[in-house]
């Protein structure tokens, strides 16, 4: 009996071990031809070092400089690199669409392997000192992508981890370009150095703006000189600024309407005065003889 009991216990233990699922991390399918170094790079890399999300919604992403040597891995994505592309090299030539159908424009980007994320305050200070906003906008010749390219080049040269960002604009056949700076304390900060223009006069106004970039959402700009002291590059920073901006715009429109009403009233009063003067223009030098003859002494 004891032998039978012992056999039952052993069988029960064996069955229990087989029935308990053992948790293993899901293993990624790895092509056998990839060497270990490449596999490591793939596993630790996200598809984009600068995800298109609100700065406040993400922590600063993993610190990897795409121009640094560790990024020099063969392309393993299905699309594959463009012909002749340098993998992880310092310089890239990028082809851009232009306003002329079928005509592309090439620009060269120089990456700095030593560029790294900086503090938000350091990035803001760099943007304040930069002169990349200077220049006259001219479509295709020197447009927003050129302003962004210049800022990108300055940033890379100064060792700031940064990216050129191009985006389309809903309902318009247009694109726009800005630069993303990866900060170590406030996510991705976006800078827009393209001037503003007043179409009616052609006047251009060089501006430096911190902007909010997220797919499908409104593009919010804060002039660099109006960045609040407690700015943290969060979505609410932009929402609050936009709210104040809209409120100021509403007040301005109301003020302009009142000014217009006063102007109309002023004009009407002037017309009444003119009409009154016209109607009472009874005595002029030419009227003197008539007046004199009518006077009864």
């Amino acid at each position, binding site marked *: 009996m004891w032998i039978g009991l012992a056999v039952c216990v052993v069988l029960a233990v064996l069955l229990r071990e087989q029935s308990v699922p053992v948790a293993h991390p899901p293993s990624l399918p790895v092509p056998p031809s990839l060497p270990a170094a490449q596999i490591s790079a793939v596993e630790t890399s996200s598809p984009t070092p600068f995800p298109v999300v609100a700065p406040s919604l993400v922590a600063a992403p993993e610190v990897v400089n795409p121009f640094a040597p560790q990024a020099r891995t063969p392309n393993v994505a299905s699309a594959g690199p463009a012909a002749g592309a340098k993998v992880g090299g310092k310089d890239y030539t990028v*082809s851009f669409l232009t306003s002329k159908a079928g005509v592309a424009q090439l620009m060269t980007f120089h990456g700095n392997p030593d560029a790294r994320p900086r503090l938000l305050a350091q990035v803001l200070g760099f943007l304040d000192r930069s002169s990349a906003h200077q220049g006259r906008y001219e479509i295709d010749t020197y447009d927003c992508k050129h302003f962004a390219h210049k800022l990108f080049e300055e940033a890379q040269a100064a060792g700031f981890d940064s990216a050129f960002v191009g985006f389309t604009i809903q309902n*318009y056949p247009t694109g*726009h370009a800005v630069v993303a700076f990866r900060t170590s304390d406030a996510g991705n900060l976006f800078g827009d150095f393209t001037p503003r*223009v*007043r179409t009616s006069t052609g006047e251009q106004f060089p501006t430096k703006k911190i902007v909010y970039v997220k797919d499908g959402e*409104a*593009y919010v700009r804060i002039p660099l000189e109006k960045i609040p002291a407690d700015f943290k590059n969060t979505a609410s920073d932009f929402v609050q600024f936009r709210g104040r901006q809209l409120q100021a715009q509403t007040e301005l429109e109301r003020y302009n309407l009142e000014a217009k009403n006063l102007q109309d009233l002023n004009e009407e009063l002037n017309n009444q005065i003119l009409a009154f003067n016209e109607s009472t223009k009874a005595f002029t030098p030419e009227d003197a003889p008539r007046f004199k003859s009518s006077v009864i002494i």
Partner: protein
Amino acid sequence: MDDVNKLGASLKWALEDYGTLGENWTIGEAEFFPRRLPNYFPRERSMMRVVE
């Protein structure tokens, strides 16, 4: 070389216009350069593409 334009597309790289377009932009799609892997702009109708 300019494979970004295989489709014969065009794109105006805009600037802000007081009181009109620039005041009411809604972002469509944003693309970042560089990305970690070299197929930076994999979308077929991308506005820009690395060529060398």
